[in-house]
């Protein structure tokens, strides 16, 4: 018969054995990559005496899942593009770096994990990771960090951080893409009412919503020759994607737009609710459309309900920065680049593009091309007279906005409805 004491002892031994067994395999955690094969050490005779080449590892943190068909997918594919062009490069990533999915691990802590797995450069993909960038760069001042959408490296910017010597900011002038989206919406709408499904409110989102409005207003008046003002309404959900109980539900917001006669909804968020709902309404016989954002294939979920998508080719801007890290020539940069106006859809040269979808008629497609041609030719819609939403003057007649005025746009523009700041 076994006594209780013996059983206790046996139990403890079992637990210890389990722990020891687990600890006895201290193999380095495999690095998840879209990898190239590691340098072979058995083929060449010299390899026997030489250490295998150190892999060059790109790490990226994405705020959403890399399969969101939106922002995070586009960012991730940009990193994949850079990896594919840099010999011997590997890529590791951590996705869902946000407080809803991972409330107890900060972006800085995720970055630490990538660093431990050997990342030579770390990409933070969201404005929401500002605090993470700050903490991480303070702890690791020599590790190259790329903050997508950031402005810490902009010497003329309001948030310039001179001490963050290894941090670079990479962005592209999506304002042009949003103008194209606004134009496509204005050319298509039958009701003269355009909805903008906005994320949270900050400098970036205000200027992108305003850019969409400027494009819509221009094409409404100058191409369609309409005389009544266009109805352009912005509804912010509170985040880049739906967080139940925290944000407004983007599905409901899109539904409300369509129900209220806004027959084109421009999505400013990172997920696909606008086009999904447009598809639903179209299946019920309504003539409504959406315009997606971020990712080239974002319209694929419902091509006939989608007019098109302004999208990013992040790889175009990421590649030279990451290559410079590998080459040892990295210096801090602030990049906010124009499209390649000779071919905005060239994946190797244009950091933003606009992909038309089946919902856009051939006639309107041609008119949109005409508008894009005007932009390429120097048309500047950030030019006065323009007023802020509250009626105060933004730009006097003939005055063009500076980059600072655009980046830090404090309000929406006159003619737009919706909140300029959170209430």
């Amino acid at each position, binding site marked *: 018969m076994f006594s209780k004491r013996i059983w206790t002892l046996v139990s403890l031994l079992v637990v210890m054995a*389990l722990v020891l067994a687990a600890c006895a395999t201290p193999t380095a955690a495999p*690095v998840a990559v879209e990898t190239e094969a590691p340098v072979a050490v058995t083929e060449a005779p010299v390899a026997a005496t030489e250490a295998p080449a150190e892999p060059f590892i790109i790490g990226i943190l994405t705020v959403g899942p890399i399969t969101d068909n939106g922002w995070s997918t586009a960012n991730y594919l940009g990193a994949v593009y850079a990896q594919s062009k840099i010999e011997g490069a590997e890529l590791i990533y951590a996705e869902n770096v946000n407080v809803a999915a991972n409330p107890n691990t900060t972006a800085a802590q995720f970055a630490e994990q990538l660093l431990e797995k050997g990342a030579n450069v770390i990409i933070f993909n969201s404005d929401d990771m500002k605090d993470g960038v700050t903490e991480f760069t303070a702890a690791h001042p020599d590790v190259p960090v790329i903050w997508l959408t950031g402005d810490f490296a902009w010497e003329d910017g309001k948030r310039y951080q001179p001490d963050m010597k290894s941090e670079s900011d990479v962005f592209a002038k999506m304002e042009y893409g949003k103008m194209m989206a606004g134009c496509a919406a204005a050319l298509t709408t039958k009701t003269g009412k355009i909805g903008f499904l906005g994320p949270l409110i900050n400098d970036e989102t205000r200027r992108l919503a305003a850019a969409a409005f400027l494009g819509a207003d221009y094409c409404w008046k100058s191409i369609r020759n309409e005389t009544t003002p266009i109805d352009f309404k912005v509804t912010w959900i509170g985040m880049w994607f739906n967080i139940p109980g925290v944000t407004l539900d983007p599905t409901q917001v899109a539904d409300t737009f369509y129900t209220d006669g806004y027959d084109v909804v421009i999505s400013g968020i990172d997920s696909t609710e606008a086009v999904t709902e447009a598809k639903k309404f179209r299946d019920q016989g309504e003539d409504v459309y959406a315009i997606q954002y971020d990712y080239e294939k974002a319209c694929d979920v419902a091509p006939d309900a989608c007019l098109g998508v302004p999208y990013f080719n992040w790889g175009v801007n990421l590649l030279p920065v990451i290559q410079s890290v590998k080459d040892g020539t990295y210096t801090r940069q602030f990049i906010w680049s124009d499209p390649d106006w000779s071919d905005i859809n060239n994946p190797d040269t244009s950091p933003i593009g606009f992909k038309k979808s089946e919902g856009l008629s051939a006639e309107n497609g041609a008119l949109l091309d005409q508008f894009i041609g005007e932009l390429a030719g120097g048309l500047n819609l950030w030019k006065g007279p323009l007023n802020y939403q509250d009626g105060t003057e933004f730009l006097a007649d003939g005055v063009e906005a500076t980059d600072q005025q655009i980046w830090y746009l*404090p309000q929406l523009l006159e003619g737009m409805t919706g909140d300029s700041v959170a209430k």
Partner: protein
Amino acid sequence: MDKDKTKNPNQNSFLMHILTNRASSMTLAVILALLFTSLLVWIMKVNPISVFDTILSGAFGSTNNFTQVIQAWVPLVLASLGLMFTFTAGLWNIGMEGQIVMGSIFSYGIIRIFDGSDVSSALVIILCILAGIIGGAIWALLVGLLKNFGGVNEIFGGLGFNFIADAIMLFLVYGPWKPEGVANGSTKMLETRFWLPQVEGTYLSLWALGIAIVSVIVVTVILQGTYFGLKLKAVGKNNKSSFLLGIHTNRYMLLAFVLCGVLAGLTGALQVTGFNHVLRNNISGGYGYIGLMVGMLANIQPLITAPIAFIFIALSKGAAGLGIDLKLDSNLAGVIQGALVIFVLIMDGVRKVLNKRNKGVQSG
């Protein structure tokens, strides 16, 4: 009565020995939880060994990882300790999450008041922690008052107050406390002078760790070494009898809520000044709910909460690497934690039933 256990045929079996002994049945529960999780992982076509290896390496593979585990252990053990008071009094404080949120709101509010002032940062941090404690205690007291004087079950009251606390939080971070021109669900970051000092190169605050260790000792002493603890236990075991024996049961239940709220508020304050350095939505981090699981496993023994909380948080932090290494959702840690709780409860139930039956056989 025949005291010779060998005469009970049930007790002759090997399995019966395992099932009726507390330590061995708990070990079996752990093994079953691991097997259950392995099965799930295997169905997902991932090698279970690599999953556990990744979790272990994510939690203990480096100094940095380990300090992250310790840092996250602090709020979890504090939340779990708070729940020891309400568990002892026979109460389910589901409202712990809301109490942590209110603690963080109160503590951030104090820092806002002194932001830009010349007041000593040490004093501000102390005030911030005290404010957090008060915030959590008030929120817990409200649940207790509703229960005692309104007849509202503490589970429903707690849940209701969780929603209210979240709503207040969202109002503040998207409204009056939002950074200038931005509304992204977070306030601006605290000035570094209002951070609890951290060990250089890590996110760990030894002050926060010290507070947690002292709390373990204090709660243990209160619950296991004082008349208050004894009376609270009596209230939890048999409320009516305690009342008939002269214990002010309502008062003790309220005190249990308040003390729980104190630790919840302390957790919230440390989340602000020791870890997040901002006020943001979801700042409670689910510690209130995970604390309930820890509390259930600890079986109202404060000292035991410390290692159990450590295992739970090591699982959570270690699992963060699952996404990086194996492309698995880090929420798998929650599955392991949940499986642990379920299997421990099942095995505990089985053990009690078998022991009761054996006792009956012996008595018969």
